[in-house]
C-alpha cells in the first residue's frame, strides 16, 4: 500500500482531455471472481494482476506473504520462460501476484497465476527458507528509521493492520501442515480479482481464468488472535532526527485527503529546505490516514516538532483555490506518468479495486481530483485539527564520547 500512497503524495486547470486513466476499461466476471480489463493494444504485452482479498487468519500473521515467498521462485522462473516477469506484493488489502509478458502468452501467464491459488504443499526446508526471508523483512521494517517510523504510526492508527511480514510469534506456527489450512481460510474464488492491462480482450481473459481452483474446506485454526509487541524494541538506525505524525482520516473524501497531504508536504518542505519530507495518504480497507514524516538535522528537531504540530493550522490559514487546483492536477499527471506501462497501470487500477471493490474506483478518484474544490480541502484540515495525531520521534544516534 505504501507504493500507491507514495504515488499519490510524491508530488493542474481542469483539462478537457478525456480521462486516460482507464479509457477503454471493461468489467466482467468469471465464476465469482471480478475481471477488469484496460485495453492497450499497442504494446503487444499483457499484465495480469491477480489479487486475493484476504487478511491473514488470526494467529497466522504473515502467512499470506510467506506462501508468496514459497511460490515465488517457481512462478518467476515460469514467467521468464516466455520472457515475462512475475511480481509478488502483499498489501494491507490483498495477496497479489502480477505476471507480465507477451499478449500471445495470455493462457500461459493465466495458468501460472491460477496455480498460485492452489493450496501450497511445502516441505519443511522450503517453509524455513521462506520464514527466514520474512524475518529479514520484519527486521528491515524495524531497523531502518523510515520504515520504523511508518510502522509505529500505522500500529497506533490501525492496530488490526498487522505487517505483511507477520510477527515472530506467528512465525513459530508456520509449518507444512498449518499453511494449507491457513490458505484455505484465506482463499475463495469470490475474493479473487483479476485486472488485465494490454493487448487482450475481455472474453479471452475470462476464458483464461475460467478454471479457478475450488477452495478447500476451512478447518478450524486453534489460534484466534495475533499478539503484537510494541515499544520494547531497539531504536532504529538514524543519523538524523525522524519525526512522524499521522491523523486518522477514514471518514474524509479521499481525493481531498490526497491533495491535503501534498499541500502539507509542500508547506513543510518550504519551511525546512534541508529536510526530507514525505506527506502520504494511507488508504486501505482498514481506513485512511494522512501521515507526515520528516528527517532533519538533530539541531532542527525542536523546530521540526513544532512545525509538524502546527502545519495543519498554518495550511488552513493559507490554502486557496489555485493551490488546490495545481496540487490536484499535479497528482493526476503523476498518476498517469506512474501508470505508463501495463504492469504499473494494472497495479494502480488493481489497488483501487482491491480497496473499494469498485472496478471504476481509479477512474472515480481521478475524476474527483479534477473536480476538487478548496472547501473540501479546508474541511479535511478542519477535521484534522480536531483530532490528536499519532506521533513518533527518533532522535539521531550519537557516538558516546570517550571518558578521559
Amino acid at each position: 500500500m505504501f507504493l500507491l500512497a507514495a504515488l499519490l503524495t510524491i508530488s493542474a486547470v481542469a483539462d478537457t482531455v478525456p480521462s486516460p486513466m482507464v479509457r477503454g476499461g471493461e468489467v466482467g466476471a468469471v465464476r465469482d471472481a471480478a475481471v477488469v480489463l484496460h485495453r492497450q493494444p499497442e504494446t503487444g504485452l499483457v499484465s495480469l494482476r491477480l489479487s486475493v482479498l484476504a487478511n491473514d487468519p488470526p494467529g497466522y500473521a504473515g502467512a499470506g506473504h510467506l506462501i508468496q515467498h514459497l511460490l515465488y521462485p517457481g512462478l518467476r522462473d515460469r514467467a521468464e520462460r516466455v520472457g515475462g516477469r512475475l511480481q509478488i506484493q502483499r498489501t494491507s488489502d490483498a495477496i497479489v501476484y502480477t505476471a507480465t509478458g507477451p499478449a500471445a502468452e495470455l493462457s500461459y501467464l493465466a495458468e501460472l497465476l491460477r496455480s498460485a491459488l492452489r493450496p501450497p504443499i511445502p516441505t519443511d526446508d522450503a517453509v524455513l527458507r521462506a520464514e527466514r526471508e520474512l524475518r529479514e523483512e520484519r527486521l528491515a521494517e524495524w531497523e531502518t528509521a523510515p520504515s520504523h517510523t511508518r510502522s509505529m504510526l500505522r500500529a497506533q492508527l490501525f492496530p488490526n493492520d498487522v505487517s505483511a511480514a507477520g510477527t515472530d510469534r506467528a512465525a513459530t506456527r508456520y509449518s507444512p501442515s498449518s499453511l494449507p489450512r491457513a490458505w484455505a481460510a484465506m482463499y475463495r474464488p469470490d475474493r479473487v480479482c483479476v485486472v488485465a492491462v494490454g493487448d487482450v480482450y475481455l472474453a479471452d481473459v475470462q476464458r483464461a481464468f475460467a478454471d479457478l481452483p475450488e477452495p478447500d474446506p476451512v478447518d478450524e485454526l486453534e489460534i484466534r488472535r495475533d499478539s503484537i509487541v510494541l515499544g520494547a524494541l531497539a531504536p532504529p538506525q538514524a543519523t538524523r532526527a525522524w519525526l512522524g505524525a499521522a491523523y486518522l482520516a477514514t471518514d474524509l473524501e479521499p481525493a481531498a485527503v490526497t491533495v491535503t497531504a501534498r499541500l502539507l508536504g509542500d508547506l513543510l518542505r518550504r519551511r525546512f529546505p534541508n529536510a526530507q519530507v514525505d506527506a502520504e495518504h494511507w488508504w486501505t480497507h482498514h481506513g485512511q490516514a494522512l501521515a507526515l514524516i520528516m528527517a532533519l538535522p538533530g539541531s532542527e528537531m525542536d523546530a521540526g516538532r513544532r512545525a509538524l504540530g502546527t502545519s495543519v493550522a498554518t495550511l488552513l490559514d493559507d490554502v486557496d483555490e489555485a493551490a488546490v487546483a495545481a496540487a490536484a492536477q499535479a497528482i493526476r499527471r503523476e498518476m498517469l506518468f506512474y501508470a505508463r506501462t501495463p504492469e504499473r497501470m494494472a497495479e494502480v487500477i488493481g489497488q483501487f479495486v482491491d480497496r473499494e471493490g469498485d472496478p471504476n474506483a481509479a477512474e472515480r478518484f481521478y475524476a474527483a481530483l479534477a473536480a476538487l474544490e478548496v472547501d473540501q480541502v479546508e474541511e479535511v484540515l478542519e477535521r484534522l485539527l480536531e483530532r490528536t495525531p499519532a506521533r513518533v520521534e527518533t532522535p539521531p544516534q550519537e557516538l558516546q564520547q570517550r571518558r578521559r
Partner: protein
Amino acid sequence: MRVALVGLLLGLGASQAAAQSRVAVLSEPGTPVVATEILLAVGPADEEDDLAGLAFLAARTVVAPILPVLDSLGAHLTVTPQKDALSFSIVSAPDAWQESTELLAEVLFNDPPSTSAMEREREAIVRELEGRTANPADAATRAMDRAFFGSSHPWGRPTIGTPESVRRINFADLGEFLRNNFTPERAFAATSGPVEPASATAHLQPLLGTRSAAPVELIPFRPAERPVRIEYNSITTWVGASFRFPETADEDVMRFIAFLAARELAPSPAQRSVYNVESEVVTRVGGGEIRLQVVVPPEEAEDWEERMTDVIADLLATPLPEDVYAGLLRRFRGERLMELASPEERAHAAARQLLIQGEVGELAPSIDGLTAQVVREAAASLGPPTVVVLGPTLEN
C-alpha cells in the same frame, strides 16, 4: 501499431520528401501519457578533438532553464548522449505534451544559451566524470570504443568527454557549436501516446521546420584486429567482444544472435566463475555492432579472451534441438517486448529508425522468419570481433 509517417516537404520535390521522413507518430489510445523523443543527429563527430563532450554539455545547458517549467507541467525530460545523436526524451500528460515539446524545441533551436547554466552544467558533468573515473565498467566501455572505432575516430573518444576536455570548453565554444549544429534539419521526432496522428504531426512538423533532413554520414573506421589488453587496477577482469554488422542486416536477427550468445556466456554450473554478462545491439547509419561483455576472475582472462572471440562460431557449431530453439525464440520475443513496455522506449526506438532508415517499421520483434537457418547465415556473416581485456595482470 498505427504508424503515421510524415515526409517533410523539401521545397525541392515530393520524391525527396518521401526519401527522408523526420516525424513519426505512434497513435496509442490505451497509453496514458505522451512520450516524445527528439533525436538530434549531433555528437562527437561534430566536436573538435580537444573539446570532447561539447555536444552533451550543450544539450544539458540548453535544457537547464526549462526544467523547472517542465516540472510544473508534470513533464519528465531525459537527455542521453549517443555516438551519433543526442536523445531528448520527454514524457508528459496528454494535456501538457504540446506545451512541453514546444518548450523543448524552443530552447533547442532558438533560445540563446545562458552562461550561468553552462557553468553549472559543466561543473556537474566534470564531477560526474571524476566520480566515474574509477569505475571499471566505464573504463571497459571506453576501452572498447577506442578499440572498435580507433583512437583517432570521434566515436573512439568518450561520448561525454573527459574531465579535462569538458573543463576546457568555454562559452564561446558552446555558442558556436549550438549555432552550427543544433538546427532543426538535424532533428527527428517520434511520439507515442493517446494522440491523433494528423494533429500530432501538425504539431511536430513546425517544430522541426520544413527543410530536408541533413545527411547523416558515417566517418569510416577500422576496428582493431588483434585483442587489446589493458592493465587496470581492479579485482576482476572485463572481457568484451564487439562484432560489426552491415546496415543491411536484420536487426531482429542480430538481437537474437546477441541473446543466444549472452546465454552461452551466462553463469551456469559449467562456468561458475562468471560474475556478470551483458549484451547490447547498437544500430547506426552504416551498420551496427553486437557488443558482449563478461566479468571474470583475472586468472581466467586468457581463456575468456579466446572464448569471446569464438562465441559466435561456437553457436554455429552446435545446432540446437528444435524444441530448445523454439523455446529460446519464445523467450527472446517476450524479453524484447518487455524492453518496449514504456511509451518512451517505443518513441526512442521509432526515432532511431527514422534516423537510420528514414522510416519506421514494426517495433515489436518479428520472429516468424527467424529460422535456425536464417540465424546461422546471419551469424556466419559476422566478421571476427574486436576483443578487449581490461583488468589486473597476473603479475599484479
